[in-house]
């Protein structure tokens, strides 16, 4: 799917405790600090777990089947993302993935 979107993976880093978060965040839920700075992530990670959705909500019905994974980022936190998988590719826990884009469906990664 070649949809437009953000090409860089941007996280938030708490200016108080340094914790990384997936945006959006109003404040740091760990320490309460109200200043969160944008942090450019490498976009590299691996598959922590994954599934293929066969029964979808009404708005996603036409996209079935589609892959969703929890991606363990190099930076240490996880993010829930769609995986842009080619038909010949198979997903597996631990397989490296890289960030593709972020759009109205959230984060996209590929093998």
């Amino acid at each position: 799917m070649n949809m437009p979107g953000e090409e860089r993976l941007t996280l938030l880093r708490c200016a108080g405790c340094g914790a990384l978060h997936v945006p959006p965040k109003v404040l740091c839920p760990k320490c309460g600090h109200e200043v969160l700075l944008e942090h450019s992530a490498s976009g590299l990670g691996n598959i922590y777990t994954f599934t293929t959705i066969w029964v979808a909500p009404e708005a996603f019905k036409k996209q079935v089947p589609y892959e969703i994974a929890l991606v363990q980022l190099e930076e240490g936190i996880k993010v829930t993302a769609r995986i842009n998988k080619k038909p010949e590719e198979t997903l597996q826990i631990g397989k490296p993935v890289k960030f593709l884009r972020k759009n109205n469906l959230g984060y996209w990664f590929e093998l």
Partner: protein
Amino acid sequence: MRGVSIIGIGTTPFGILEGKSLKEIATIACNEAIKEAGIEKEAVEAFYLGNFISGILLGQETIAPLVANSLGLPKQVPCTKVEGACCSSGIALRQGYLLVAAGLANFVLVAGVEKMTSATTEKNTEGLASAFDQETEGQTGLTFPGFFALIARRHMHQYGTKIEHLALVSVKNHGNSTANPRARFRKKATVEEVMASRMVADPLKLYDCCSISDGAAAAVLCPSDIAHQFSRKPIDILASAHTTGFSTTYEMDDPTILMATVMAAKKAYEMARLFPQDIHVAELHDCFTIAEIVDSEDLGFFEKGKGGFAVEDGLTQVGGKIPINPSGGLISKGHPVGATGLGQVYEIVKQLRGEHENQVRNAGIGLSHNLGATGQVCTVHIFKRRG
């Protein structure tokens, strides 16, 4: 704080209640609970009604006063809808418990209701998915079967849980509900049937999933010291705990552990001064087969990672070490989401009264565990019969 007891219960069957409205089924369950308690409607001092998606599916909100008016409760009774996804009526029980325990009311009616089968599967999936954070995870098209599929695959990876273990949960629960007249499904299932059913969210198949259902359940609460005046077999609430977990999967350190359950169980055992091994029967939140395995570990019945093997060894069957979901559970009794928590309580009360169709012998202490969304909401209650 005063002791709180259950003196009356009521329910509809769970399943496809064609031609019956949300208001109608909630009224039927509430009326039955009030009649069983042997109190006058005028004695009810507060009403809490659990419901999750009637706004989305039916366009019907403000349902607590709606049901109260249908029932004919006095107009001075405060009526409140509570929502915590699939844990909605667990919270209704908890709120009623707090009011009676605090001495602010003597008789409180608590209920849960959901009407789902008049909507399509996709519409239901969409309604249920409203419990995801729509600013983040909800955008991806993640579903609840999908959320539990992510947990299942990780559980299998970390602990060697097998796909057959998941299937065996479904087989057990389908077997249990053959005896339960309130259950949606009354037919046994085999491992082969479960494994051959169609894929919903890999690795979870249709028979790994709870079924969309209609249903309502209710209970009447009163102070323990007067409960014997209304019921020959009052059931005492030894513990009531309500906790909060993470809103998104990616913020969980280890999604094979649902922290809201772990914390609610800890609080409930402390409050009841009991240990997991003291529980004789449990109705827990098996919205998916993997959920029953994870819950049974998080509630302390089995060590983390051993839940699937416990099912294989028959430890969770009626007659086993800890009978789990003798009603058939959400998988086979059905899961009318807003009604489920009190549906579980109905089953536990029947067990502790010694009146259940799939009776656990000498059941004296029972536990109910109700979970909402991504484990964002959890209630655990512990009940005891007298004598």
